[in-house]
């Protein structure tokens, strides 16, 4: 009876550890190989959040710049780099997201998406051709996502908005100088590697 209890305890711990490990693994950039392409996913990254999401809910479009870099052999050798700009908007009546790729020709777009699906769609478009990459070479990947800052308009200390026919308004200058420092640009980064192409293929099988 005691051994049975011990086995059960181990089983419980194993279940916990495996679940936790899977969850931890999911924090990183996940690479998957299809034919001669590598696809990327990052289920823990939620760039449709915070200030960009506030702007989207205010019916504005928000551009996100994506960049994925793939190194092979050593971390000094960039094998390929892929960049794209996705302009996301949020339908205030349907409460769904739409997204347009600005770099790809012809421009791809998708709509009627929920937030996680929108995020996943953007990463799907970043898949990379790895023809010529040795299956046994170590490779590393880095994902960088940046939300474009909200335009400050023709402002600045002596911008057009603060000068008129009556001159420079000191009240406006006081207001500008009293502002808290601008919040840093919304920015997300993830890394993966070292990995091997053959491992990605085997993992898929």
């Amino acid at each position, binding site marked *: 009876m005691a051994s049975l*209890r011990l086995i*059960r305890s181990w*089983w*419980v711990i194993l*279940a*916990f550890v*495996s*679940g*936790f490990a*899977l*969850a*931890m*693994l*999911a*924090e990183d950039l*996940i690479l*998957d190989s299809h034919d001669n392409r590598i696809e990327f*996913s990052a*289920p*823990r990254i939620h760039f449709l959040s915070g200030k960009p999401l506030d702007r989207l809910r*205010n*019916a*504005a*479009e928000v551009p996100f710049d994506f960049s994925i870099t793939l190194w092979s052999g050593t971390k000094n050798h960039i094998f390929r780099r892929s960049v794209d700009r996705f*302009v996301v*908007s949020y339908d*205030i*009546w349907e409460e769904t997201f*739409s997204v*347009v790729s600005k770099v790809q020709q012809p421009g791809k*777009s998708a*709509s*009627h998406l*929920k937030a*996680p*699906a*929108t*995020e*996943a*769609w953007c*990463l*799907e478009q970043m898949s990379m051709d790895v023809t010529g990459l040795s299956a046994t070479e170590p490779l590393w990947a880095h994902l960088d996502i940046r939300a474009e800052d909200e*335009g400050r*308009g023709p*402002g600045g200390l*002596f911008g*057009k*908005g*603060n*000068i*008129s*026919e*009556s*001159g*420079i*308004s000191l*009240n406006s200058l006081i*207001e500008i100088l*009293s*502002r808290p420092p601008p919040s840093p640009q919304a920015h997300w980064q993830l890394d993966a590697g070292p990995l091997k192409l053959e491992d990605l293929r085997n993992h898929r099988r």
Partner: protein
Amino acid sequence: MNPFHTPHTPKLIKTRCNPLALRVRLGKIVMKTLFLVSLCCALVWGQNPNDTAPQVQATALTEGQLNVNSRYTIESVQVIGWREKKISTHLRSALNQIVGEKLDHPHLDLLAQEIKKEIHAANVQVKVVRGSIPDQVAVTFEIPPSHELGVDLNVARFLYHSAEGWSAEGNAGTRIKGNNFTFGMVSDSDAALERFAGVRAGFERSNVGTDRLSVRFGFAAYHDQWNDATLQADAADTYRTRYIFEPQATFVLAEPLALDFGVRVSRYRLAAPLANTESSNAVVSTLRYHQRWGSDLKDVQQEGNANYSVTVATHVLASDPTYARHSVSALYRLKHAHNLLELSFLGGKIAGIAPLFDRFVLGNATTLRGWSKYALDPLGGSHVVHGSINYAYRRVQAFYDTGAVWDKPSQKQQKQSVGVGFKASAFQLAVAFPVGAGHTEPIFYGGMNF
């Protein structure tokens, strides 16, 4: 058959009553729960995007469209918050024009900048929410409260001119129940023959029974300093101090035509050692026309500005000098994309003998910019004609000025100047050269709002 007397029921009762069986069962429940919890963690945290692949439906975006909301129609626009009532009718009209249009968020941001600029707000926020019926949206421009000092402080203008030195003006103003009160300090060596430095105070009410009529009272006290060239030409007409009181009214005849009328009472103490204080009291009137076509939001903008002013100093008002001063000025401005073209004209004539502050001057930061006014005519003239062409591409500008200032026809000499510089917003920095002067001594100037 009684459903409560099934064969399982007694067994269940029996199991519950057995402590060992109860522990085994509880253990199973706990294990299953833990397994399910860990599995849920794995599924929630570790979900593969491929497992929840976006269901891409028929796209709502047309080609070239970036914002899915641009298919919605704006049903209403409102401005709320600080100084909302100060927005001009021109801008309100531009705001109202977007009602019925499709939503264009960048255009809304431009309008917010226009509001910010016009009322000196620190920030204007655009809010877009669902409208009262589907496929329509309501737009609100919110002006958050500013650091309200109760007083507007402005650096109205400043200028450095290589032949004249520094000029600057600062104002403070406040508004109490529709009445504007202003107070300012000035030291100006550009506008007139002399440098006048002192204080200004004013009161203005922009609505006297009707929006068409406004009244204002202005007071100024100046101390005057003269250039050697003027003193050598005729020191007897110069003065040390000057006080001005100007009660005036403006009546809008028909938009965009308005008429200013009133009187100007000036008392000045002549510089000569035993000279008395003199008065120049005059009826003043100006007919003004100002029209704009397009707005800052459009590629092509045009602006026309024309004034005719008459100043009549007469013994009826106990004026020492008697004269009539007429002047006409006009400005046409055309802006297309990054190109800006400005054409300006000034003409004037004085009948009688006017004090130096009312005589015409050329050769400063706005007229015959390559010349010094002290070299052209240190006493000013009773006749003037002047024209300018300015062209600017982005921030680079080039200009050509021509004109003449004279008292007697025999003294009339047309002068010309050319120059180049930089112009950004109200700031300007330029160098100008006289044409046909026999020398190429350039004039430098730079500043704001002159």
